[in-house]
């Protein structure tokens, strides 16, 4: 339930947003424009009707994440996220889950990012009031149910999630992040993350909740099959009595630490990975479109190169993340058994160099089409669109329309993409090798790949 690697938003749409087929009770009614407003206690609310299916996506996010973890307690934000699922003043333990499950909700979960903790579900249209009531319970009344037993259970669960994540998705990116930003940066993770859960305390978790889980540090997004007037009434009823408070401000380190070139780490993993990362400027929508097209072009160029024994990968992905204190792009490759770290890293470096010289308009048009289709598809998915709007309000301070990002993708020129390539000249690369039997290994973050 932790997503440090959330891909920063991409996208927009072609024609004007039209409503779909007559599939819901409200389908015949015209959709009013989306509404954004702020409650008197500071809660930021965004409501967008879409009646194509009798469903809605509900998200509540708090402006707190792993970047706010106290020193030596990396993962506290994640632990608090878990604790808020374990009952409230008016809900017994487990009742949050059972209530939503019996209502027919799906995709019920929470994630903790570097700057943001989000709770979300997809609900049947008739369950909006219930969903809002449950989230208002979380915001106002969960902390008093934090106790020693729940704390210890979730401490163990968070530790296990850490282990699973490393096993299944690798640890190279997190290791790289620390090396790139410096070990004292709020986003940096210690290399033995799991052990830091031992430093956490129940009172620390309670104080953390009270500091950050406030309406004036929260955002509510609802997209789907509902009437805006109903939603406003319920939001007002259930959230407006909750108290705001002064929110601690996350500050960047006073001096930028020099990135490590060699960093020793010991980690358990079942994966063989190469991760490469680059710092990039904080993104506007246009910058995001440029970066997306460049990264898609790089991966498009790389794919045919990764079919030899030495460059074989089981998966390769890119992400560009823009957060409050740092923005970066990364490429992460999970190696096949025959793949060599050095060969894959060299192929990536070569791809950027080649594109700087040889990227053609036809190549750009091709990746642009893929990017546009991807954007249009993600927009039709209510939960994906709700995530997009949440992130946009965080990063750009406003929601966007489907066409906004589509227009940016359409407008990016070949020269604009090529101009980005120098940002990717110097990468920091890390490699992680597999071990049989899941015993710890040692490795180095350096350019000296195996």
């Amino acid at each position: 339930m932790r997503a440090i690697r959330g891909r920063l938003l991409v996208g927009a749409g072609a024609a004007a947003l039209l409503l779909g087929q007559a599939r819901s009770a409200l389908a015949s009614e015209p959709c009013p424009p989306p509404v954004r407003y702020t409650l008197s206690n500071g809660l930021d609310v965004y409501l967008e009707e879409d009646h194509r299916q009798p469903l809605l996506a509900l998200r509540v996010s708090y402006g707190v994440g792993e970047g706010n973890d106290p020193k030596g307690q990396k993962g506290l934000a994640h632990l608090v996220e878990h604790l808020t699922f374990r009952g409230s003043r008016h809900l017994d333990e487990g009742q949050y889950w059972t209530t939503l499950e019996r209502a027919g909700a799906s995709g019920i979960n929470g994630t903790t990012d570097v700057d943001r903790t989000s709770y979300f579900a997809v609900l049947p249209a008739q369950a909006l009031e219930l969903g809002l009531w449950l989230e208002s319970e979380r915001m106002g009344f969960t902390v008093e149910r934090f106790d020693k037993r729940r704390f210890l259970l979730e401490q163990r669960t968070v530790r296990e999630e850490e282990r699973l994540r490393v096993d299944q998705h690798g640890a190279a990116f997190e290791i790289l992040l620390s090396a790139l930003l410096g070990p004292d940066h709020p986003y940096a993770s210690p290399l033995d993350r799991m052990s830091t859960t031992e430093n956490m305390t129940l009172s620390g978790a309670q104080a953390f909740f009270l500091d950050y889980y406030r309406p004036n540090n929260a955002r509510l997004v609802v997209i789907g099959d509902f009437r805006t007037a109903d939603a406003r009434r319920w939001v007002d009823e259930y959230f407006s009595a909750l108290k705001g408070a002064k929110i601690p401000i996350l500050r960047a380190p006073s001096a930028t630490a020099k990135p490590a070139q060699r960093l020793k780490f010991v980690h358990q993993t079942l994966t063989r990975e190469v991760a490469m990362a680059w710092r990039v400027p904080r993104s506007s929508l246009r910058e995001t479109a440029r970066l997306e097209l460049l990264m898609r072009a790089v991966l498009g160029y790389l794919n045919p190169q990764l079919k030899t024994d030495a460059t074989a990968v089981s998966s390769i992905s890119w992400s560009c993340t823009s957060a409050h204190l740092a923005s970066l792009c990364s490429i992460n490759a999970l190696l096949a058994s025959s793949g060599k770290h050095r060969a894959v890293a060299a192929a990536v470096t070569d791809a950027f160099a080649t594109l700087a010289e040889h990227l053609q308009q036809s190549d750009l048009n091709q990746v642009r089409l893929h990017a546009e289709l991807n954007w249009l598809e993600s927009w039709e998915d209510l939960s994906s669109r709700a995530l997009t709007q949440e992130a946009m309000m965080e990063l750009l301070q406003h929601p966007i329309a489907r066409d906004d990002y589509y227009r940016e993708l359409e407008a990016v020129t070949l020269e604009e993409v090529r101009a980005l390539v120098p940002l990717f000249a110097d990468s920091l690369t890390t490699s992680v090798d597999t071990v049989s039997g899941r015993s710890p290994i040692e490795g180095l973050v350096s350019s000296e790949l195996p």
Partner: protein
Amino acid sequence: MTSFFSSCAAAMVLFLVSAGCTSLDLHPNADQAFREFAPPLAGGSRLTIPVVKRARLANGLRIAVIEDASAATLKIAFADRAASDSGPYNFGLAEFTAAVMRESAEAKANSPSDLVHAVSQRHNQSGTTFQLTILPEQAAAGLDALAGIVEHPSFDANLCAKVRAELKVGYAAQATGVIPSLTYLAAETLFGADHPLAHPIGGTDRDRAEFKDDAAAVFYAARYQPNKSALLFVGSITLEQAVDLAQERFETWRPPAVASPPQEALPPLRPEQQRKPALAIATGGEFATFLLAAPCPARGAPDTIVADLAAELLGNLMQSGVRGRLRSAFGSSYTVSAQCRQSRNSGLFSLEFDTELPRFSTAVHATLAELTQLRTIPPSPSALAAARASYLGRHAESFGTSTGELTMLTDQFSNALPDDFYAQLEARVNAVTPSDVTEYAARWLKESSTIIAAEGEYSGLTDGLSQIGEVQWFEMH
């Protein structure tokens, strides 16, 4: 109130050093009358099934369309029932054949922007699908790409060699997971090595070495026939438009008539005395992976829905079943999942989770206890209601996207489901009774037809598995 006092007591230890307990106001918000009870849920249908329009060309090719004039994209798929489930002894041949067909079309493409390069190829136990997502105005070019793959492919030796090399790399890249390894091992033990479920969909390197290149041409001729295939559309297109476009490209497709191979019967469940009740792969580390497997009904069988609801009850609800039991016992429950993987001819039920090694034995015990309960005690009405709602909720979410709608069409065709299968789904889900679940579990999840497979450190697994019976040990890969 108890929790408040204990919380504050704990808080004092820390805040003596920093802020002090009194600053920790754990009741920051006043109560209100409406908070006493959660708002009631309005009734109504949970699932809205998209309308599917159908037609058939003169050569037998089926066409199914979900029209959505407002959609900004169009999804097109060519689906065929050629798959490993067509019978034993051809593991990997369906994927190999499809990959050569695609490679052949790519080799003929005139430009890198030809949409044939955007086609993705998918396989499961029931069929093969070539599909792509395009803008609506690209419909003709998209169908050209699919026709280029499906009609008149070349099975040239060089193409076959290239595909073999790529599949070898691809297999090496993918066939390394613990859960897949345990699943194939369990299926092999339950059904024998000749059963498709005991093999990856694309086959292993060894499987592919069992057939020669010319087997692909024979497989193509036998399996890729218009009357065994379908064109599926979701998005901004009408049935009439789809039929017109399909007629222009597929009407004359008449592959040489060859006798279809008879449907070979899949191997039955191996007799209980020929297998041990538990399998284990000894590795190391502090965690263990657990998998319980059993046969389950094929996709279109009458018990399909009960099988799915049994999986919900056993492994997928947060506060009951194995997940609920492990969660309340020691927290580590988020990885629990259960499902009946159904194909046209067979099905495999599995429940899997990861756990810390010291808790493995407790987790196994809890799982077996839940399984026994499912076989003997009808689930409570509220638990069954939760399973129904959760199951329907996932379907509703899926049908909210064109990807989910295309998956529905593919499922219907590949698994030869009746046209009204999804239209009847909600009614069939609601018709399942608690005793249906018990009867299902007693019949399909009985002790003699389930098998446990686990991976982890030897002594930790031994403790946990000893309660089941004799263990057969394996090495990873």
